[in-house]
């Protein structure tokens, strides 16, 4: 499979408060995801999994290493300059969707579900009548497991955590992106709602067979029914990577074994 998004030999450091030397958070990490594939990036707090996937989506710059999208370089500018210079970057921003941990923080509290979910269409410059927008948004909500008639006019304050996260997922897919990043999409909600999110993400994969999905999680139990491939990170180092079945069935590294143990009942 040729990679849709590929990150090679990524090194990343952050300034450390009150210290002159910088703290390294990624050590020569490479990762890729192909069209139609789901990659899960797994690791504990501070493992660098969010930083790696943000770099893959062009949301952050690497210190060294390169990122490509559909064969085009995603150019990482330096010195605080917006990394918006390359065609690869612009295409990636246009053709990707994002889902974050806290759905209420990513939904405007004053906007109805219809307006929030339709926003990416507006930003993409799609000119739609209200009727067409309702239809497109309704389709996205249904794919995410929500009943549109019941949802379109609600405000975020009228949603449960699980519903709000599915609204955020509907918004991420509404403009038919080629790649979606879901960063800890189930951490902030209860177990029952987590299963709904898992089902919604699987339904989206089935409805968009060419879409690539990158899921970030600290929980192997969550990704076992979702991911094709797993990359395990620990303290910024790649621990192991491989097909989900291989990594879960026979983890080669001690750290992965700990993650497997922690996800067992």
């Amino acid at each position, binding site marked *: 499979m040729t990679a849709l998004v590929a990150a090679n030999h990524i090194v990343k450091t952050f300034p450390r408060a009150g210290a002159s030397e910088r703290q390294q958070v990624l050590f020569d990490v490479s990762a890729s995801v192909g069209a139609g594939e789901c990659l899960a990036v797994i690791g504990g707090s501070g493992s660098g999994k969010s930083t790696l996937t943000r770099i893959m989506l062009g949301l952050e710059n690497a210190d060294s290493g390169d990122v490509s999208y559909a064969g085009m370089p995603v150019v990482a500018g330096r010195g605080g300059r917006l990394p918006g210079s390359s065609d690869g970057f612009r295409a990636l921003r246009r053709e990707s969707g994002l889902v974050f941990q806290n759905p209420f923080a990513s939904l405007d509290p004053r906007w109805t579900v219809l307006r929030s979910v339709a926003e990416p269409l507006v930003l993409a410059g799609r000119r739609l009548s209200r009727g067409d927008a309702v239809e497109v948004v309704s389709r996205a909500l249904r794919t995410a497991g929500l009943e549109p008639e019941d949802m379109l006019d609600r405000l975020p304050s009228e949603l449960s955590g699980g519903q709000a996260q599915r609204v955020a997922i509907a918004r991420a897919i509404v403009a038919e992106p080629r790649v979606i990043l879901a960063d800890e999409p189930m951490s902030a909600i209860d177990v029952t709602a987590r*299963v709904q999110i898992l089902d919604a993400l699987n339904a989206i994969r089935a409805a968009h067979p060419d879409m690539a999905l990158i899921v970030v999680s600290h929980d192997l139990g969550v990704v076992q029914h979702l991911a094709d491939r797993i990359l395990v990170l620990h303290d910024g180092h790649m621990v192991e990577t491989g097909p989900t079945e291989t990594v879960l069935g026979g983890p080669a590294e001690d750290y992965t074994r700990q993650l497997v143990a922690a996800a067992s009942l």
Partner: protein
Amino acid sequence: MGVDIRGLNVAIGGRPVVRDVNLSVGDGERVGLIGSSGSGKSMIAKSLLGLLPRGAEASGSAALGGTEAIGAAERTLADLRGRYVGVVFQNPGATLNPVATVMRQVELPLRLHYDLGRDERRDRVMSMLRKVGLDESVAGKYPHELSGGQQQRVGIATALITSPRLIVADEPTTALDSIIQRQIVDLLVSLVDDAGASMLFITHDFSVLARATTRCYVIDDGAVAEEGRTARLLAAPNADATRGLVASARRLTLSAEPMAAEPMTVEQGGAR
């Protein structure tokens, strides 16, 4: 008897949030309260601690070590909370004082509720930090210098410093990653058992409950839907609410045969 709740009802703005709950935690027992978000499980614990929100109306009885909490004076409740109970909260980053060192946080309950000299307090804090697996050098640090797991260990040290007879743990691991989650649950269980104390453990997750408790109550819509040994509820849930929570936990738990969707083995479901 550690906790004895009889016919507890709580309403907020006229809306019932706890409905006729009977619940007990025996001395040295670890008991779970499990339910989805909004099921009312935290309200039950808050009634017991006298921490209900303003405007909540409680009736019935909730006794802590033989002292009635419903309708009790604030001084009685504060003394109960300080001496008899230790509480571990969900988000340690938000419950620790950002401008106090670990030493000051952990010794505060001793300063408030006990008449001890400074050296005696410091000795106790140092020994407690070792018990929760923290290096003594942590004593001089501030919360922001600690990882989430270390912060929760400080939270546990603060809850246990007065040698309480009952630990109330309200979703203590939800904000932590899965490996740290397991470490914190195992730490709590060993500390509670070593001290011969009781624990009321509140969570939405059966996979955590299976490690933390031997018996539990399933709360649904403010009422007890089912009660029993945790291992039995996992293996043979009766009530719809229990079945839903168990099914969710199983879906999100690695099976022995990882890619098999259903079913999964339960032989490790009991108390350790």
